[in-house]
């Protein structure tokens, strides 16, 4: 009997602890799904996530597949080399729905295998800039108009004045061209937006009565900021996470175009860089269009989600 009693109370405790959170999430979700754009964004993102997680399921060939010779390796005849980049072919000489590039690698295969890099860069840059920007914004807003706030805002001001792309180019050139360095270089600049927006939100939130009552009942500053204010700004921080992710994916593509791509990982930016360095920009549409559309779709999905969440997150509307 006693154990049953315990179990009941445990369930009750869990319900009391998580129930209202679940309801709040449900409310937010209902509001989010009223925006068709946001739902479309999530659908696009889910497709690309599946690509990123299980590329071998979606790609028509393994990543080392080459036109004519397949995965065994071997040499192409001069005739076959002359036909590269090959336009889309459906089983006649070989099966490559989006054609091949100058080396004979399938475009669709590369496209699917590149989804991982794009999503990795997007999520990593978004999460990292939130992890830097949100706490700094909270601190800056909570201690508004003190030297702490002033210091953080001055730093943000100076960072704002640095041109974004040139800074990333120089940083990546200094630190070496790897995906990690590209992400870090993007984060160096992109946390500022999160910081400034969260600061503004915190500035108005800290005037609320519940902050005063928490203060009176002896809560420490840390507890007030992270237990009482943070939950209110969290939805807004997700909006900026999504926008940072989109911007990061676009920046990576731009860097790749300038020749600063990580050549050890498949990425859409690298595919576009190769078409340019091989000089097929205006003769191989099947190679030019798909990576660009993929980048556009992923970035747009993040923007769609961000803008739909803004309505959920913005307490003023």
């Amino acid at each position: 009997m006693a154990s049953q009693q315990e179990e009941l109370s445990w369930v009750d405790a869990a319900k009391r602890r998580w129930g209202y959170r679940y309801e709040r999430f449900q409310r937010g979700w209902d509001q989010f799904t009223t925006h068709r754009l946001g739902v479309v964004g999530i659908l696009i993102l889910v497709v690309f996530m599946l690509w990123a997680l299980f590329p071998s399921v979606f790609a028509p060939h393994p990543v080392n597949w080459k036109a004519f010779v397949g995965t065994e390796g071997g040499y192409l005849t001069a005739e076959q080399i002359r036909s590269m980049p090959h336009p889309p072919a459906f089983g006649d000489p070989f099966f490559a729905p989006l054609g091949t590039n100058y080396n004979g690698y399938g475009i669709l295969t590369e496209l699917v295998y590149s989804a991982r890099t794009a999503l990795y860069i997007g999520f990593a840059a978004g999460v990292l800039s939130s992890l830097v920007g949100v706490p700094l914004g909270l601190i800056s807003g909570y201690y508004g108009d003190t030297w702490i706030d002033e210091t953080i805002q001055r730093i943000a001001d100076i960072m704002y004045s640095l041109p974004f792309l040139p800074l990333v180019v120089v940083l990546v050139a200094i630190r070496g061209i790897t995906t990690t360095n590209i992400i870090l270089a993007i984060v160096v600049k992109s946390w500022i937006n999160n910081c400034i927006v969260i600061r503004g939100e915190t500035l108005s939130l800290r005037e609320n009565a519940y902050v005063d009552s928490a203060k009176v009942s002896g809560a420490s500053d840390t507890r007030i900021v992270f237990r009482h204010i943070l939950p209110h700004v969290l939805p807004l921080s997700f909006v900026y996470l999504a926008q940072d992710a989109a911007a990061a994916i676009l920046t990576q593509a731009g860097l790749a175009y300038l020749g600063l791509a990580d050549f050890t990982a498949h990425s859409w930016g690298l595919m576009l860089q190769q078409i340019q360095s091989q000089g097929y920009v205006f003769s191989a549409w099947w190679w030019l269009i798909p990576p660009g559309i993929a980048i556009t779709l992923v970035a747009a999905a993040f923007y769609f989600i961000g803008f739909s969440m803004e309505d959920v997150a913005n307490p003023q509307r």
Partner: protein
Amino acid sequence: MTRISAKYLSRRLIVSYATILVIMTLLFALIRSMPGSFINLMMSPGMTQEQIAALEARWGLNDPLWQQYIRFMFNYQVGNFGWSPTQNVPVWDLIVRRMPRTLILFGSTFVMGYMIGPLVGMYLGWLRGSTRDQAIFTGGLFMYSMPAFWIGWLVIWVFNYQLGWFPSSYLVTKFPEFEWTTWTIITDVLSHLALPVISVTAIAWVGSMLVMRTTMNDVTDSDYVFLAEAKGVPERAIMIKHAARNALIPVATQAIVGIAFILDGAVLIENVFNYPGMGLLLVDAVLNNDYPVTQAVFFVLAVMIVIMRLVTDVAYTYLDPRIKFGEEN
């Protein structure tokens, strides 16, 4: 109208100057941490150790770091940017040649973007929720998500490759069949400018459109719009004269972010179109390890942003009569 007092203006100027000083310090640290040395490009395999040491001494690389720092800070403030080892000319000459071209590209894009964006945003915010609004808004976000250089390629493909309207690269025609007169120079440069400007504007108009659409929607719910409606003012006049003017103020705030965004676009697009501006110079310098040029171009771009932010801030206070700066109420 003395809303902008001399005190406010001078304080803003001092803050901007301090920002530039801090940026210079950051730049000094940044470039010193780049791999290799400045004189690597001047060395040849046949040089003896003494010759290399003499080269280092000549360029002041053996001095203590604080002396290098002070020299750097002084030289940069008087416009002495040093010597480019790859192009063998003073960096200042390079920048003076390239800067106006980038400013023309940037300026025309800025004007185009901030003419189209707020106008479209005004209509969309007024018609919020309609199918037209949804379609243009979604389309705008899609354009915002396109890689700038990819748009550049598509634009070249359509307007140069298929239609043949505009040239696809460089600033002027390389081997012209016509005489260089004032008129042909202007038309030639403008036709070369057309495609880069179209490419950057295709992305740049969206930022201000988004802001304008949101604020326009907020403004339409305000009392003075209802009053104007009740008075029987025509809808078009309400939209343009009453609502849009107030909705423009947040667009000015957004312009501060937009400036940096358009500059990024210009840097990329210059590389696509081989447009000989600052962006092309910067990327070439980075890829060739030309540190003096990298450093100077980065510095000049940063100064450009600081100045334009100052101008936007001051313009902002003119736009919004409710803001008072530099006076104690």
